[in-house]
């Protein structure tokens, strides 16, 4: 299941194994049969660490979702709550425990906080009078979860909001802790670079933590040469743009959650032999997406316009392989063919799935303006056109007619916010008149309560009135070559292919850092928010790498506040470039896209009433 984690430059399976080990140890501490009561939010991240089989081996017999009222009956010795440290969840647990005591007094209660214990929560349990009912109160430090062979995520959705709106830096503390764990397993990272306030904080904490443990030297040969810490607010533009890689589009359109995507089932209907019913499936089709699937690993980072060709090439190869059976004459040959069959079958079903997904996406993205005016694709195309205008700096200081029209036809609010924020970011703030106009139109159309959301976006710097008359964006765009007129989607030669022309700012910074170095872009770095810095960590003698000629260096890029799939694709592209000399491993607080990001910054009415 997790073999794909160990194929990359850095074997991330070590990290996963460490996490599994700790989970087993905790489970064994509560001896006897058990039931787990889950904070539903945690099941996704946990799924990346362990399957049910692991839990079952450690006598977990039942699992329930945490909800108020009475706990379901289960004939087990232990009840374990797996929860995030949230006060509202403590109230539910207290309710569960209270109603339980009257019926069975023999069951033992435990709490496992993920990723950290919280004094406030324990205080709350005490106030509710149930703290004494728990035998074990523990924490499960799930800071960095291996997501794929080159990707780690904390799955910490609210990190950006907490850092930039609420000024709560707890997520940064967790980040630093996670990086210390990583260094304990993969060796001290000798060089640290960073850009942004949060990056500075994290680096400071890491350096202090290292000082505090100065007694015990880390004797592991460093796997990473460099750590680059990047604040999301250094590059607010990239997540707002629509991602145009295959994986990016799947995420934009259907949403990838903890490595899974749910798709409309129609295109996946399979003809079943010998079955009369031709009912279309109604349940969404759920697929896991990662590099364990060979075909997916090949196509996910391609621009969507290059996916069709890749799929048809693959189809030819698979057909040819199946045709081979006619050539198998001897028993030995037949045997060999049969032995390859499982692999071929897997390849075939993988191909079928991705062909279906590509079709689904094509229905939405491809336009033929003059023949088939399919309105979904028309909208997609128009939206993209406006995005590209903003990114190239066209008319960003005026009210945009397309946005106006979208508001008038009540398109989803998040779509509007994405565009308006993008215009604001590309214009270094909107002219007061334009800002007021959009604000009024939005409140009138979607409801006045969104004053709260608009204020949040303002606090986060995504949407703001212009304070100085100077717009830095054009300078940044030109210096960093953020817009490439002739992006090659089929055979890319530059990272700009991931947005069909726009090269993500964050990745340009990463690229320039590797070569020729940040000193060449001092001016631009000063225009972007927060300090930029470089730190070195001393290695014990004997751990200095002796680099072979032509051996690549490894950089861990950590995105504080989230990263998009298209940015990841761009980094993978850089890793694969022959002359780059650098391999990238990516870590983040959360995988995001414009929609999930804006959503995390909204104050939604439905969250207000408990």
């Amino acid at each position, binding site marked *: 299941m997790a073999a794909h984690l160990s194929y990359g430059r850095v074997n991330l399976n070590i990290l996963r*194994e460490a996490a599994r080990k700790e989970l087993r140890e905790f489970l064994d501490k509560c001896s006897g049969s058990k039931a787990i009561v889950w904070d539903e939010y945690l099941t996704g991240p946990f799924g990346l660490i362990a399957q*049910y089989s*692991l839990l079952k081996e450690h006598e977990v017999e039942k699992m329930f979702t945490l909800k108020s009222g009475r706990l379901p009956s289960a004939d087990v010795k232990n009840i374990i709550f797996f929860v995030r440290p949230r006060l509202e969840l403590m109230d539910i647990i207290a309710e569960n425990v209270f109603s339980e005591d009257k019926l069975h007094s023999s069951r033992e209660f435990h709490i496992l906080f993920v990723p950290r214990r919280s004094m406030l929560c324990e205080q709350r349990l005490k106030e509710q009078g149930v703290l004494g009912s728990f035998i074990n109160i523990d924490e499960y430090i799930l800071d960095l979860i291996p997501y794929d062979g080159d990707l780690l995520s904390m799955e910490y959705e609210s990190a950006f909001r907490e850092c930039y709106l609420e000024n*709560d830096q707890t997520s940064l503390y967790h980040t630093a802790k996670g990086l210390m764990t990583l260094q304990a397993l993969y060796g001290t990272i000798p060089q640290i670079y960073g850009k942004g306030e949060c990056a500075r904080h994290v680096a400071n*904490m890491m350096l202090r933590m290292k000082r505090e443990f100065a007694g015990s030297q880390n004797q592991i040969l460093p796997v990473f040469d460099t750590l680059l810490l990047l604040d999301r607010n250094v590059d607010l533009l990239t997540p707002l743009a629509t991602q145009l890689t295959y994986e990016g589009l799947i995420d934009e359109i259907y949403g990838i959650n903890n490595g899974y995507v749910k798709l409309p089932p129609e295109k996946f209907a399979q003809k079943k032999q010998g079955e009369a019913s031709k009912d279309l499936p109604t349940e969404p089709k759920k697929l896991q997406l990662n590099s364990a699937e060979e075909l997916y690993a090949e196509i996910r980072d391609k621009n969507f316009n290059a996916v069709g060709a890749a799929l048809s090439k693959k189809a030819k190869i698979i057909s040819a392989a199946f045709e081979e059976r006619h050539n198998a004459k001897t028993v030995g040959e037949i045997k060999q063919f049969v032995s390859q069959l499982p692999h071929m079958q897997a390849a075939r*079903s993988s191909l079928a799935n991705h062909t279906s997904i590509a079709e689904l996406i094509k229905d939405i993205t491809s336009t033929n303006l003059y023949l088939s005016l399919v309105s979904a694709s028309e909208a997609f195309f128009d939206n993209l056109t406006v995005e590209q205008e903003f990114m190239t700096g066209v008319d960003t200081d005026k009210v945009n007619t397309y946005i106006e029209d979208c508001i008038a036809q009540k398109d989803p609010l998040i779509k509007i916010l994405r565009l308006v924020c993008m215009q604001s970011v590309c214009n270094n703030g909107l002219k007061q008149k334009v800002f007021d106009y959009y604000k009024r139109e939005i409140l009138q159309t979607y*409801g006045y*309560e969104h*004053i709260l959301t608009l204020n949040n976006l303002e606090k986060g710097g995504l949407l703001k009135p212009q304070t100085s008359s100077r717009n830095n964006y054009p300078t940044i765009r030109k210096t960093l070559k953020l817009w490439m007129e002739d992006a090659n989607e089929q055979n890319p030669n530059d990272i700009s292919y991931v947005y069909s022309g726009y090269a993500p700012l964050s990745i340009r910074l990463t690229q320039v850092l590797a070569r020729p170095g940040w000193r060449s872009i001092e001016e631009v770095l000063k225009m972007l928010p927060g300090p930029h810095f470089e730190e070195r960590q001393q290695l014990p003698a004997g751990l200095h790498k002796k680099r072979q000629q032509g051996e690549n260096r490894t950089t861990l890029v950590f995105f504080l506040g989230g990263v998009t799939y298209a940015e990841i694709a761009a980094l993978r592209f850089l890793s694969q470039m022959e002359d780059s000399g650098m391999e990238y491993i990516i870590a983040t607080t959360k995988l995001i896209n414009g929609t999930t990001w804006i959503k995390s910054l909204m104050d939604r009415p439905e969250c207000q009433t408990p």
Partner: protein
Amino acid sequence: MMKSKPDEEDYWNSSKFKAFTFDDEDDEFSRLKESKQAVNSIRRLVEEDDDEDDVEKVSWSGEPVGRKTKTGSFQFSDSLSDSSVRLYAPELRKPKSEYKDYVSDWSPEETVHRMQQGKAVSLEKFRSLQDKLLLLDFSISAHDGNVITAVTLFTITFTVLFRELESRQTALRHFIHYLTETRDQRLLLELLRALGRTEDIALLQYKEHLSIADENKRRDFLKSCLSLPFSPEDSAHVQDHYTLLERQIIIEATDRQAERGGKVEIFQKFPRRASILNMPLITTLYYCCFYHYTESEGTYSSPLNVRQTFRISEKQFFVTALAARAKLKAWVDVDALFTSRNWLGFTRKKSPLGFHRVVDILQKNSAPTQVLQEYVGLVDDAELRISLAQKHKCHDIIINTYRDLKDRQQLLGYRGKVERGSVEERKINELLDNPQIRWKN
């Protein structure tokens, strides 16, 4: 691995309560028919084999991992082996027996450090204000929100609170966050007021309205918000919010009565689907355009009055009225929306909205072809006009456009697409035969 399947299925199926799987492959499995299973499960089997490998690695008990964690400076395992010692805020004390670990006299720095490591500490020895603040400052520099909040709560006595916290923004933020989470609204507002963060107070207070269900109470609450120190722009929006709800309550009461009375035709023909309360302004305007279109400007529900009161832009008003009247198939009203007289007294169609968007709105409300045709013809861009005309089968427009473009080839091509012997075909033939047209091709 296959053997364990039935067990797992039993488990999932026998649980009466909503249980779930990590890996949805499992529940998909249970739905699959055998025949399909044979073919499609190949990949899954491969995966499960992998999984079994993992299980074996489990018993291999992670030698390399274990070794590495030990040589690592501080680790997973450390925090677990340490688990008998716990982190307790002062209020969360354990029985006396567990005290022995922290009788020692830790310095503020060590105390914070131990708290971060999850070890037990006593905060009570920090008695003087100076000691407390020192402790607070160390916790702040540790950046661990959990510790900062705990220390803040401990150090705070409300007399010194506001003054001292103001110079410690981080602790302050965590305290505010804590008050928000515990929903201690009163204290929170008091704190913000003392800090002079007036806009925050205003927004926070305003946010409360969302949890008031009763419309009259909500309206009164919004009214009470009007005096809050919002920024000037937000202040105007909140005023509008209040005015809107006030108005909605009046309209709702009147219309509900009219509907029940059964004498007003429009409510009989198109019964209201939902109450208008708490709907956005533009939705309210649509409602007014639908049910109260002809009312004079003096009434609360008159669209013109709504437009004026809330300073709705021309375009928004236009689009909303257009959609509402089109929905009712009141084509005369639709037509009137576009009509303006120029100074010579001729009427011509004018629209603050591109005509292709007009067509779009009309078409969504299933306008008949004759109506559509009129507006398709007004689309400026020739190519867009033709594509819309093709979509809506407005032959005349296509033919006329090709004629105006003097595009003989296209016209010839189009002749092939219209019905044999139809009026359109005859028209095309006439044009093609017309010697006065100077074709460009």
